C-alpha cells in the first residue's frame, strides 16, 4: 500500500480536548466555507491554493476505500498535478455547463499533533444542476482531511481523501469536490 495515503476509514473516536476541538472546528468550518465557495462559483483554478505543495488528493468510492484499493477518480500527488487538472478543466475540457453546490456538515476534529497537524473529517453533499436538468445529489460522502499550518498560520490541506458513498456516478464528475 502507498505510504502517505490514509488506508483506515473505520470509526475513530476523537482524541482531542473539547475546548481545543471547538476552537479548531470554527477554523476548519471557515476553511470548508471558502473552499466550497471557490468551487461553487466556478473558480476552479483557485482550488489548488488550498493545498500544500506535496499534498495528496484523491476522490474514490467507499467500495475502493473499504477494499483498500488505491485507485482514484481523481488522484493527484502534489499541488502541481492539481494545478494541471484545474487548468485542463477550465480551459480545454468539453462538458455541458453545470452548477455545483457543496454542503459540508458534521465536522469532527480527530486529533492534533504537537507540530500542529490536524486530523479531521466532515460529511458532504454535492448537488449538481444541469441546464434544463433537475438539481440532483450528485455525490454524497465524507472528507478525510489532514491540515497543516502555512507560515501565516493559514490552514492548508496536506491530504484530502474524498470518499463517496454514491455507488454509481451519474455520467461523470467534472469538477473537484
Amino acid at each position: 500500500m502507498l505510504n502517505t495515503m490514509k488506508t483506515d476509514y473505520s470509526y475513530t473516536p476523537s482524541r482531542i480536548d473539547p475546548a481545543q476541538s471547538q476552537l479548531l472546528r470554527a477554523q476548519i468550518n471557515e476553511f470548508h466555507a471558502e473552499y466550497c465557495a471557490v468551487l461553487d462559483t466556478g473558480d476552479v483554478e483557485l482550488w489548488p491554493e488550498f493545498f500544500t505543495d506535496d499534498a495528496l488528493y484523491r476522490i474514490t468510492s467507499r467500495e475502493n476505500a473499504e477494499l483498500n484499493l488505491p485507485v482514484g477518480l481523481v488522484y493527484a500527488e502534489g499541488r502541481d498535478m492539481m494545478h494541471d487538472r484545474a487548468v485542463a478543466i477550465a480551459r480545454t475540457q468539453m462538458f455541458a455547463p453545470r452548477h455545483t453546490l457543496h454542503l459540508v456538515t458534521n465536522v469532527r476534529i480527530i486529533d492534533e499533533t504537537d507540530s500542529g497537524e490536524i486530523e479531521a473529517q466532515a460529511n458532504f453533499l454535492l448537488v449538481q444542476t444541469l441546464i434544463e436538468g433537475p438539481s440532483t445529489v450528485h455525490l454524497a460522502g465524507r472528507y478525510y482531511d489532514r491540515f497543516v499550518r502555512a507560515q501565516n498560520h493559514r490552514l492548508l490541506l496536506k491530504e484530502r481523501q474524498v470518499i463517496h458513498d454514491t455507488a454509481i456516478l451519474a455520467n461523470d464528475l467534472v469538477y473537484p469536490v
Partner: protein
Amino acid sequence: MYQSQSVIGQTVGAKDAALADCVWPADGLNAIPDWVYTSQEVYDREMERIFHGDTWNFVALEAEIPKPGDYKRSYVGATPVVVTRAEDGSIHVFENRCAHRGAEFCRSSQGNANEFVCPYHQWSYDLKGNLQGIPFKRGVNKAGGMPRDFRNEDHGLRKLHVTAYHGVVFASYSDKVEPIEQYLTPEILEDFNVAFPGKPLKILGYYRNEVPCNWKMYHENLKDPYHATLLHSFLVVFGLLVAGNKSMMLADSTHGRHGIMGSAKTDDLYADVNPETKKEMRSFKDGMRLRDERFLNFVKEFDSPWSVTMQTVWPNLVVQREMNTLGVRQIVPNGPNSLIMNWIMFGYEDDTEEMTRHRLRQGNLMGPSGFLGLEDNEAMKFVQEGVRRSSSDINILKLDSGKVGTSESLISEAAIRAMYQYYRGVMEF
C-alpha cells in the same frame, strides 16, 4: 438499476419503433437509423440474440476471485449473475435469482462464502449453483412440505457456460459459441495477450457510472478515431494522439464486431502539430504545458508497436491500455437509453510501488473524471438526447466511404460500418 438524470426522459413515439417498422435505410452502409438507439423492441431483441446469443460476455478478472469461496456480482447483458470460485478452484457463473421465488439473493459486490442462502425462505446453494437445502422440505408433523418427487438437482440456479483466458473470465448462455481464442480472432488475440500475458494481475480499484446512452454508442465511440483528434483536445495538445501520428483502426476480419484503436506516441513529450492540421482542429490550444509532467511518462513495458490501444470485444468488454494505465470496462445495457459502466483498473503483481503510483497518476486520463473519459461521456449523452427528441432520424456515416473494416486513416468510419454490417445480420435488419 436506475437512471440518474430524469428530466429529459422522454423518447419521441416514432423513435421507439416497433420491430415491424424498423427498416434499414436504403444507403445501408452509409447511414444508421436513430431507432437502433431508442427502440425498446430493438433492445429486447439485442438482449436475446446478442447478449444471450452466441457470444462470450466478460464477467470478471480472476484476480478478483483468487481464493475458493470468493465471489462477485456481475452481469451478462442486463441480467444479474454471480461469479464464484468453488472449493476445487473452478469458476462458475449463475443467475442471481433464487430458483424458488426469484429473489436476487446475492447483495454484496464481492466477498467470500461457503454457500449462498436466499434470505427469503433460506433455500441454499453451493458455490457451483446447485440447490443444497430447503428448510422444512418434508413439512412439519407430517403435514406440508415438498412433493415426494421434488428433486433438488432439477432446481439449481440457472447456470451459464464459463471460460477463462489469461485471467479474464467470460460467460455465455450459448452452447454453440466457439472457444474463446477463436472467438477473439487472431488480430484481437495478439493485442489481448499484450495486456494479458497470463501473469498475475493486481486489482487497483473500481469506477462505476451510468452513461445515459445506448450501449452500442460506446462501441462506436471506440471505433471512431475521427472524434479522438477533435473532441479530446487534451490528447492533441499533449501529443498523445494527433491526426497524422502512426495509428490504426482495426476491425476483426472475421466478423467486424471486435476492434482495436491504436496509436504510437512519438518520443517528444508534446506534439508538434503542423499548421495545416492545426487549422482543422478548433479546440487546439498552442503552448499548453504541464507543471507536473510525470503523468505523461510512458514506461515501455510491453512488446507492441502501439503505446495506446483501446480494444472492443463484442458485446460487452473494453480493454484499455492507455500507455501505462490499464483497465477493463464492462458494458451493462440498462434499457435502450442507458448503460452502466463497470471499470476495473489493474496493474501486475510484480509492479514496484513506483509503477503502481505511475499507473494511478496516469489514471487521471481515464474513468468518469478522466481528461478523456468525461468528454466521451458528455458527447454520448448529447447524442442520445438528440436522437431521442429530434424529428430527423438518420446518422451519416460517409467518412472513408466504400470501405468496411480496418482503416489506416483516422479520418474514417469504416470500423463502425463493419460493426453495423455484422449487427444487421444477427438482428435481421
